[in-house]
């Protein structure tokens, strides 16, 4: 099934098309999505950890929307990249590790939003629990990037 994915018309187009609009574009969009998604997450994490304390927490709420749009972009481009190389990626431990870390990052974002933003009230003091979520989020996204980069080097 994996080889049939790889040999599909889509995959062949993606990998062998000389057009600048194929594989390099998908890869660039994926990199862009990562930069936006992780960038936004890091800003929320930094604020929760006490940096930029003049910024009202609630004013950062829109960054979550930014994160979801960027994630959607990366889910689509990521699937395309996976399809093009399915038989190599599917059995790769480091690939699934990356997805696991991405999942952790997303869960952290959901939890942070639910507990600190949904009420709409500005907290007087950021709770220890929120700070812990921020640290886990920061580490998870860094680990996801690390695993993603290591895909090119490790089976």
């Amino acid at each position: 099934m994996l080889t049939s994915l790889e040999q599909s018309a889509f995959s062949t187009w993606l990998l062998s098309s000389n057009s600048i609009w194929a594989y390099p574009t998908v890869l660039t969009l994926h990199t862009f999505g990562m930069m936006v998604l992780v960038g936004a997450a890091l800003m929320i994490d930094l604020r929760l950890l006490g940096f930029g304390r003049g910024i009202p927490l609630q004013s950062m709420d829109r960054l979550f929307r930014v994160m979801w749009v960027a994630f959607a972009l990366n889910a689509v481009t990521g699937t395309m990249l996976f399809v093009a190389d399915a038989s190599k990626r599917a059995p790769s431990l480091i690939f699934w590790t990356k997805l696991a870390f991405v999942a952790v990052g997303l869960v952290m974002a959901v939890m942070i939003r639910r507990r600190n933003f949904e009420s709409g009230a500005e907290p007087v003091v950021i709770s220890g629990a929120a700070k812990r979520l921020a640290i886990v989020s920061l580490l998870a996204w860094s680990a996801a990037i690390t695993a993603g980069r290591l895909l090119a080097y490790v089976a």
Partner: protein
Amino acid sequence: MPLTLTVALIVLAVIVIVAIVGYWIDEAEEPLERGERTTDDRHHRV
């Protein structure tokens, strides 16, 4: 040491360094409460 572990440890070290330097720079900063600049203060600007 396996490649993955080496990369991960160095990345972690860099994160810690950035956090420490960032904290140090931020803490040396005056609290915003004392100095939120408005147009009234602009004649103080250098």
